[in-house]
């Protein structure tokens, strides 16, 4: 069974930032922050990183440039070399198709990567539900692992309360 979590509910980014800082200072591990919109400061504070951009580069380089070039080479040069006015079968104009094909490869690959690693898709279950998280509430989630004593829970509660949390919840 999953551990319960302490939830600090905020309605303002400033209070949220302060609480995140204080909680981290005290050495507690924040398991997640849920916000209704993207906030870059939080990525920095939680030291989150993603490698989707690196993946995207390889989709373009391998899937697009190499893949499209090779398939064009196969189709136009090996499989059925068309003689159009004696022009070379491997034409420079393939650059245009490679260009567009690369974009298609990057878009498809990046989106699929995003949906797979983030476990999103039609019918995917929400991993967490709370009133107002997609509207105007900001949540800090701290997992109540067994080594978190009752004292710690109280301290976290106090931090949240002192920094303008609307309420502190457990779920």
């Amino acid at each position, binding site marked *: 069974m999953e551990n319960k979590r302490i939830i600090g509910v905020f*309605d303002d980014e400033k209070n949220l930032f302060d609480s995140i800082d204080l909680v981290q200072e005290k050495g507690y591990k924040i398991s*997640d*922050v*849920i*916000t*209704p*919109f*993207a*906030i*870059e400061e*939080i*990525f920095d504070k*939680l030291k*989150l990183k*993603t490698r*989707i*951009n690196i993946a*995207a580069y390889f989709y*373009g380089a391998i899937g697009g440039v190499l893949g499209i070039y090779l398939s*064009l080479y196969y*189709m*136009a040069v090996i*499989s*059925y070399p*068309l003689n*159009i006015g004696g*022009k070379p079968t491997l*034409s420079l*104009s*393939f650059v*245009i*198709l490679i*260009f*567009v*094909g*690369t*974009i*298609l490869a*990057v*878009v*498809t690959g*990046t*989106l699929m*990567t*995003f949906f797979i690693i*983030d*476990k*999103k*898709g*039609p*019918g*995917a*279950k*929400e991993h*967490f*539900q709370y009133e107002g*998280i*997609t*509207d*105007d509430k900001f949540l800090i989630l701290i997992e109540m692992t067994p080594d978190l004593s009752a004292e710690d829970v109280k301290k976290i509660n106090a931090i949240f309360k002192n920094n303008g949390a609307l309420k502190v919840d457990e779920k």
Partner: protein
Amino acid sequence: MYKKSVRGILIKGNKTYGEITEQVLASQEKKAPLWWYFAMFVFSVMFLAGIWAIAMTIKEGIGLWGNNNNVAWGWAIINFVWWIGIGHAGTAFSIFLLVLRQRWRTSINRAAEAMTVFAVLAAGLFPMIHMGRIWNAFFIFPYPNTRGPLWVNFNSPLFWDVVAISTYLFTSAAFWYLGMLPDLATVRDRSKSKIKRKIYDIASFGWVGSARSWLRYEVTAVIVGGVAAPLVIAVHSIVAMDFATSVFPGWHTTIFPPYFVVGAIFSGFAMVLTLMIVIKVAFKLDDFVTEGHLDAIGRILTFVSLIMGSSYATEIFIAWYSGVEGEMFTFFHNRITGEYAFQFWAMVTCNAIIPQLFWFKKVRRSLLMLFIISIIINIGMWFERFNIVVTSLSKDFLPATWVEYHATNIEILTYLGTIGLFGVGVLLFIRYIPMMAMNELKMVNKPTSTIDK
């Protein structure tokens, strides 16, 4: 995501986040207004008429159109290019401003992208029915077949077009949907009926909004947007090359790709303006679509209109400067004067002259003027495509074959049908999908509404 400094107040009224959700979704959670049903009826009738015309075309053949030996590309290609042009702005608007980190895109991008998707769908219809035997349409894709295998001609701009436009349709639809996920989740969480909740639950892909998701989401959006920006340029350049790689006077020019791209952005921005004014007025979203937003679009249109004007002038100058008789004839006797003079001057007036009124602040601040001029620009852009397609084709190098071209009723109905398709799409969009990117509005809310004066 948005780091550029502020340009005026983008969201009026010092709103809280809750109020933004409330006000953007208000129009959907209420019953649909009467005009919505009326507009839906009108556009549906147009759409059905178009379907009938298309069915007739498929049943009887292209002979029902006004096309003839010379003018082999008539309204179908004109409308195709026109719709593709409109379809460009959505993504151009949304993505260029995303890459430039302009905050004022946030209240407009969703509608612009929706418009793109429907316009590209409408555009894609024309080449398909123009083939005559639509059931063979899959021949245009390269696949191992029983004919040799005979592949398509990879050097043909027409094939590049197939690839570019399908890529563009996929990319812009995907980008649109990706941007929608968090907002669909908002609708899901607010919905009271079980069925609605279930539908939006599936549609929102289980979005919650944890920090990790947001980071991945942002990076994905920037990458998809970033690679789509050159795609926008590529698609319309390729459409231009459909014309420019031929040897017809009036088509055979190197100016075509940039000229078409700029034209596309021009007509698309005008359509965005039309749509935003409708949304602003119909749903009273004045706080989100402020005068500043419309003013900014007006300024861009002025600038683009100048580019259009100089493109027209360049074309004419080069026709004279080249000394090629065919070019001279096309431009001076078949466009500026001659039987198509009306279309030519309509194009110049609508695209290069009337938008210059936007130099006046009064005009940029007047909703009515903005609306009228945005419609005029779209009409002008249609005439531009008419000019390019028909004048060059109708009188080519062999005077014995010169013909006139007149559209038949079937062609007109097909065109109306695509307008119907577009209208129905947009109406469904404003009814069932959050028409402004709420999560992005919330992102720019604090820094852009609290700074006063």
